[in-house]
């Protein structure tokens, strides 16, 4: 399998404070790398460097063999999704999804067809003419998804995208994410502080703490690493089970 994304020895400091130290990772096409880490561990900086919103101090970034560092964010075809859906308040749901196509000056009939198909897939067709503030939290996050997917990103970066949703909507969105990822063969890096979410969405796993990233060769290694806290959680539930 040839790597889609190769990151080698990435380092970033803010002043004298190191935020990322010698981070290396590889991601294959169609894979979802779930990165577990608490806030302040450098995960947002990692994603921003990949998106081109921050410049690294040192290290290499290659996407499909192309050096990413000289490319500005708009030429990378790498979309960054925030915890907030950040829908453009001055545009309707339809125009929010169409945004990336309009920027690329895609002809109108093509825009209509693609956006309609995307809205249908995300079950948003009835809301096409609505303003963002008329939608529920889950619907907004779906529009944000559609807006990103429609430009066929080479890589999707997700920064705690479901962090502000209630538990049920969050579970629904995780399933939707898995579904569209497979459907569109999307490769993504999914950052979360929730180990359960990481296990649900990920096909590859990593742990990021204090600027240092550990990649795991297999799911079992991820589960067994004490830093992920999964083993201790399992032990807790087993002890509850044993007491019954």
């Amino acid at each position, binding site marked *: 399998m040839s790597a889609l994304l190769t990151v080698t020895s990435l380092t970033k400091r803010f002043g004298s404070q190191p935020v990322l130290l010698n981070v290396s990772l590889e991601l294959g096409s169609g894979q979802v790398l779930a990165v577990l880490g608490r806030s302040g561990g450098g995960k947002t900086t990692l994603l921003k460097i990949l998106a081109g919103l*921050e*410049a690294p101090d040192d290290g290499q970034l290659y996407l499909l063999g192309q050096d990413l560092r000289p490319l*500005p*964010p708009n030429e990378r075809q790498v979309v960054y999704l925030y915890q907030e859906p950040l829908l453009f308040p001055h545009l309707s749901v339809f125009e929010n999804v169409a945004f990336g196509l309009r920027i690329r000056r895609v002809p109108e009939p093509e825009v209509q067809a693609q956006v309609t198909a995307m809205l249908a897939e995300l079950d948003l067709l009835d809301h096409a003419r609505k303003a963002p503030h008329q939608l529920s939290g889950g619907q907004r996050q779906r529009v944000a998804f559609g807006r990103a997917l429609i430009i066929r990103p080479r890589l999707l970066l997700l920064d705690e995208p479901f962090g502000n949703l209630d538990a049920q909507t969050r579970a629904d969105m995780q399933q939707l994410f898995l579904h569209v990822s497979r459907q569109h063969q999307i490769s993504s890096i999914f950052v979360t502080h929730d180990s359960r979410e990481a296990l649900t969405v990920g096909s590859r796993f990593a742990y990021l703490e204090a600027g240092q990233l550990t990649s795991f060769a297999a799911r079992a290694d991820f589960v067994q690493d004490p830093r992920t806290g999964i083993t201790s959680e399992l032990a807790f539930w087993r002890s509850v089970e044993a007491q019954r």
Partner: protein
Amino acid sequence: MAASSSFFSRTLLPAYGLLVVGLPLAGLGYALAGSLGVAGPLAGGFTLHYWRGLGAQTGLLGAVLYSAWIALAAVGVAAALALWLVLGAQEALRRGPLRLLLHLPLLMPALVVAFYLFQLLSRSGWLSRLSYQSGLTTSIEGFPELVQDAAGVGIILAHVLLTFPLLTLLLQAIYEESRLDEFRQLTLTLGASGGQFRRRVAAPVLLGRAAPTLLLSFIATLGAYDIPLLLGRPYPQMLSVYIATRLQRFDLRELPAGYLAGFLVALGLLALIGLLVRLHRRHAL
């Protein structure tokens, strides 16, 4: 992008600072230098002559006192009027037309208000004509001097006309924001009368929260120019008029004294504002 924007902010902020801080401070420095005889068209070298002569310059002191009187009277009357309206006419203020009317002074430049009041209140003005026609006065001199008068009644009236509607809107906004209506019902159930509520609860709350704006209006009125220029007398003058006329004289020998006055007034105002900011901060903590 990162490179270009940092270049942008690196050049933009210093340029902004140069305009907004540099230019006024340079002006202040130039005025100081001018008052010491080291800058200006007739600068003859360092001298403390004009600073020593300060004691004999009654004009500046007169202008300070006169401006303080006008500002105090204008803001005082405007605030009293606004308070009276907000406490006495809640019903009317909550409904449409009055609110809209109170916005009208926003349309009026100070100079136009001054011109209007001159046409209304001067001895040959409209009120004088009406009073003559109705037999209240029998000659043009029989009508009282309301503009260009010694006490500054015309100037005060013009400022009141401009300030009180905006203060009313401000106090009304505070009234609604602080939910004073609910407090009123509460104090009434506690056995207070309507008057007691207004004096002991509403007025202190409203004036307390409007204090920064009242002080700003006071300072703005201190520095007023357009209105006293049309409605004031050659003596006493308000500060801005006093300084502007000193510095616009054709007699260049008067310039250093004008610079001195400008420097002292600017310094005084800055000190006053600094003091108010400090007091406000301490109050807020």
